[in-house]
């Protein structure tokens, strides 16, 4: 059987996007569809197109893949320890949901939308203010590292707990990318949990999307089949972190 991160969603507030569990290719991801959106099932592959193996992910390295849209970057991390389980999270306007856990043998692999939930700072091919700060480094945003930090306005997110807000002005967690880890050690992205910022992002970054993705129409297209997953140091020319 596939080892998946099952998602249990607590119904509250209004549904952003209701997806009946039965509609998701016969798989069960959520008890109800609150704040869960299924997208194309996409395999994570390396720059050469070879499948990424969960056991091959270096710990605490920032990997980037674009999902669910061609122009929306996500962060993939192999954390140094097991993630928390069944983390209760709340969107900016009160919708509650539960982030189940990381995936992989050690339950240490997580993925999040890399668009800051505060003011949408995100990694671009030019630079990135947004990244996971490994436990060996320090950050101004929080008294501990091993967390995700947006150095634009110093929002800090708990990488091992569904990107819950630890500090700063962000009003809600990062949207999580729901991963599946298969028996052959491959990784697949299947959907987005939590309140995402995609709509505002596409509206706000038209010039940048033109520069990096041939325009917002191209950038909005859904990723299909596979998503190229590369270290952030290769994705962005420059990393900026406090």
């Amino acid at each position, binding site marked *: 059987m596939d080892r998946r991160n099952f998602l249990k969603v607590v119904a509250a507030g209004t549904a952003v996007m209701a997806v009946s569990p039965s509609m998701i290719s016969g798989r069960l991801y959520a008890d109800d569809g609150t704040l869960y959106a299924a997208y194309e099932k996409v395999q994570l592959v390396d720059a050469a197109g070879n499948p990424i193996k969960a056991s091959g992910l270096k710990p605490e390295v920032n990997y980037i893949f674009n999902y669910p849209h061609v122009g929306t970057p996500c962060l993939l991390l192999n954390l140094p320890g097991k993630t928390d389980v069944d983390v209760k999270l709340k969107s*900016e*306007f009160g919708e509650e949901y539960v982030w189940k856990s990381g995936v992989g043998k050690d339950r240490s692999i997580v993925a999040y939308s890399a668009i800051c939930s*505060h*003011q*949408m*700072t995100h990694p671009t091919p030019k*630079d990135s*203010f947004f990244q996971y700060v490994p436990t060996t480094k320090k950050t*101004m945003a929080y008294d501990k590292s091993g967390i995700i930090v947006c*150095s*634009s*306005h*110093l929002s800090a997110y708990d990488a091992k707990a569904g990107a819950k807000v630890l500090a*700063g*002005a962000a*009003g809600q967690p990062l949207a999580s990318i729901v991963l599946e880890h298969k028996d052959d050690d491959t990784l697949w992205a299947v959907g987005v949990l939590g309140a995402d910022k995609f709509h*505002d992002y596409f*509206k*706000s970054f038209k010039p940048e999307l033109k520069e990096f993705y041939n325009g917002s129409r191209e950038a909005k297209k859904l990723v299909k089949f596979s998503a190229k997953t590369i270290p952030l140091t290769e994705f962005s020319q*420059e990393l*900026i*972190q*406090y």
Partner: protein
Amino acid sequence: MGKAPVPAATGKRVVVVGAGPSGLTIAKYLKKRNKAVDVVLIDKRAVFMSGFISNLVATGILPLDFITHDFLAGARNSGYHFLQATVVDVDKKSKTVYTNEGSLNYDVLVLAPGIDYDYSRWTNGDMALEERLKTQYPAAFIPGSETLTLKSKITDFEGGNFVITVPGGNYRCLPGPYERACLVADYIKKNDIKGKVIVLDENPNITIKADGFHSAFKTLYPDIVEYMPSTTISKIDLDNKVIHTELGEEIEFEDAALYPRVRGNKLLEIVGVAKDSVFNKMEADIDPFTYQSKVDPDIFCTGDVRPMGFSKSGNTANTEGKIVAEYIDMHLSGKKLGRDTWKSPLTICYSAVTSDPLKAVSVNAEYAYNDEKKAFGFANAGTMEKWNSKDGVNAGKGLIEWGKGLYRDFFM
């Protein structure tokens, strides 16, 4: 007076006066929280210009369109009404706002009109002098024409002393005058102008990021910036272009940006919700935990008119605006606001110290209430003042992204 040209309210109506960082954030986040609330945002200006980042525009580092934005974009993207009008009066009893475009009714009124200048210490009521000061040497801390005047002053500067004053009290944008001193000095240096920047500071020391600014003055501009703390101006002689201080100094100037003390916008007095704060004249007379006027709980006063001593900065007003939007939403649904519902705004700001490459210092802080002092103070504050390091260069980039993030939050 006829009705203002806005559609009839479709739900409870919140009228927000002032489309600066505070009003823009409140209008947007009220709609985000509760689509049924009808929000009208009123501003007298036709175009938005930000005060933050404006020193970089005045000194030619960034183009004018970086800080110039479209009010209609905010209205389109967030679904509130934007009314370009000047509020002339408010009738609290009938809950009516009177503008030069007509009147409109509200269920909740938000006053976020920002600062006015208080020239009285320099002019003693001499209105002719005040007008000359405003016209010839504007402070350029209320964005718009003042920013453009400052830009042309710097562009056309041929040499001599360029005077920048720093007021006492809780003035808008604490690091602004020091950042400006650095960037004008940077301009003088780059363009090989025989000039100096003289900073006349009413305060005993640089009020924020002091280590960073002191070291920038000393290291980058040792022969250009002259910093004079604890300097109280006793007389400004515009005919002879000399500033006299209480200590008897006479400072000649070729050009200047003279920043007087600030006070609450005069609209607060017109509405009858103003009171002198411990910092400034005629700021909002509100419950500091709920932002509600002490005379009328349906009137919220926020942004730079708040009397709490928070940093008067765009970023503070932005984070505070989201909190106040939540309070208003709670108030509309009958929930009681009080100290238990209070949340702290956040202050994060960057200041540039040199342009090529852009290097900056930064501060980040929250606020906490001190029961003994009965006042708010900084909490969890941190600064990054090592501009002369990789962090300083990063902060220069951070400054640009920080500003862009705020504009996105206001208008998208």
